[in-house]
């Protein structure tokens, strides 16, 4: 949390200076979301390789407080429409996150794969879970963030842009969320 506050302070500075380059402005993003968008911060997603339309929707929702997470709501507060577009394009061009070094525990991976197939995650999110358009890349996202997000969709504390994920998660159990998150984080 301390690093986040520091990042926030830095970001406010970055934003107040209009002449700042995009590179300078994105330094604040990377303070939490990791170098080149490969997050090493708890519960904080990697941004690299994210689908630009999805990233735009999320930044927009943070700005409009349709998705609530205070640090991000503050960050996006002063963004113009053009900023939203620029940042989402930039995020999409960062390298996609790498899978963890360990291949994942066999039985857990098997259970996760079966759930991905059963619930057709691999349809909207693509066979390799790289996402498409407004559907996000989830492959090799941080496991803790996946766990948190799937749980929030299930109990509707995170409001999606549309109802799709709330609808899908209704029938997925809490135990299954853990296996799904593990598999998606480790998928190769």
């Amino acid at each position, binding site marked *: 949390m301390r690093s986040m506050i520091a990042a926030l302070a830095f970001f406010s500075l970055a934003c107040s200076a209009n002449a700042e380059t995009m590179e300078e402005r994105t330094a604040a993003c990377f303070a939490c979301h990791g170098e080149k968008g490969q997050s090493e911060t708890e519960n904080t997603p990697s941004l690299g390789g994210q689908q630009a339309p999805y990233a735009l929707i999320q930044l927009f*929702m943070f700005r409009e407080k*349709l998705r609530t997470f205070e640090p991000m709501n503050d960050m996006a507060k002063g963004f113009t429409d053009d900023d939203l577009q620029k940042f989402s394009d930039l995020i999409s061009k960062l390298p996609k996150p790498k899978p963890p070094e360990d291949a994942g525990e066999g039985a857990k991976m098997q259970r996760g794969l079966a759930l991905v*197939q059963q*619930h*057709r995650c691999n349809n909207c999110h693509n066979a390799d879970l790289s996402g498409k358009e407004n559907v996000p890349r989830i492959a090799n996202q941080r496991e803790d963030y996946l766990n948190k997000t799937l749980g929030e969709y299930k109990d509707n504390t995170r409001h999606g842009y*549309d*109802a799709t994920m709330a*609808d*899908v998660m*209704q029938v997925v159990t809490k135990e299954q969320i853990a296996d799904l998150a593990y598999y998606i984080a480790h998928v190769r």
Partner: protein
Amino acid sequence: MYGAAAQQPASPPAAAPLPPGSPMIGRPDNEAAQKLAPVAPPPLAAAPDKLPLAKLKVPAGFNIEVYAAGMANARSLALGDKGTVFVGSRLLDKVYAIINKDGKREVKVIASGLYRPNGVAFKDGTLYIAELSKVSKIEKIEDNLDNPPKPVVIYDNLPKDEAHGWKFIAIGPDNKLYVPVGQPGNNVLHDENHGQIRRINLDGSGAEVVARGVRNTVGFDWNPETKQLYFTDNSRDWMSEDLPNDELNRITKVGEHFGSPYCWQGNIPDPEFGWGHSCSEFTPPVGLMGPHAAALGMRFYTGSMFPKTFKNAIIVARHGSWNKTVKFGGDVVVVHLNKDGTVKNIEPLITGFLEDNKYVGRPVDVMQLKDGSLLVSDDWNGAVWRVTYGKQKVAGQ
């Protein structure tokens, strides 16, 4: 499903069956189906100079122009007594007003911080707003457009489901507010409080269910001659590319059941829930609106600007399909009725929203202005279009 699996020997072993209630039920496990997913509109309204006006086509004698732009995710329309046009949104938290003043139009946000405020209705100076699970009102709204008071909740005895939870609302000739409660998922059995249209008094009292077996209606209006309620209903996904059709329904008696989730389009028993039922148990639609077409907003045309054949015909906005390889709909059509109130034929009024199987716009709601011209909301562009007939007064296409 077995056939598809047989054509793909290399694919992994068949997935476990989906648990009951999953929105993915019926979704075949093949490459073509995997390409289909709900299409989300851009969150930012199109800039006025980027609107696809030049791509939209209307029949000879009709004209189309931009009425107002800059209203991200513009959805349902309602008309105030003093000519203000109110516009709801589904993916944002805002209700907009298009204000007509000294021949100029201005867009204002008149309510924000709302949750999926898709529905708007107007009566005797009061604006009614339907969010996902509550209905509220703002009295004397047109006298307070510069500083509107916060909406006051009149009714919130509604489920909170996200799926088909957003609402179209309208006030009937009986002076009651009609509020739909969608089926909470693509194809699910549900309790008595879902899959219906109910009506309430304008103070929120006296709720009564007027229709059941309604999957997801996002538009309705009353026949000006018979006073019967007609409503569009979106049929289920994943049965097939070309079936079932969306429905145009008519309520002839209170409490009628229109089939969902047991029977579709009046003659197709649901492969899962149709067992033990017959389509003859349910009220069939008066007309079919096309497969996965997403027939949404609809109004009877009562004006005198359009040709005589439009009198008391229904104009319907078809938002357009997602659950279909070659997209269908994404247009505004006119539905002519037979003397018995059933559908005679359907003709296009606005086309061109669909280009190379991609949307450049998506019509949501239609509404007639006092001069007989027609407004059409578009949630893809965050704009409202206006269709006129006869000699064009505005320069444009």
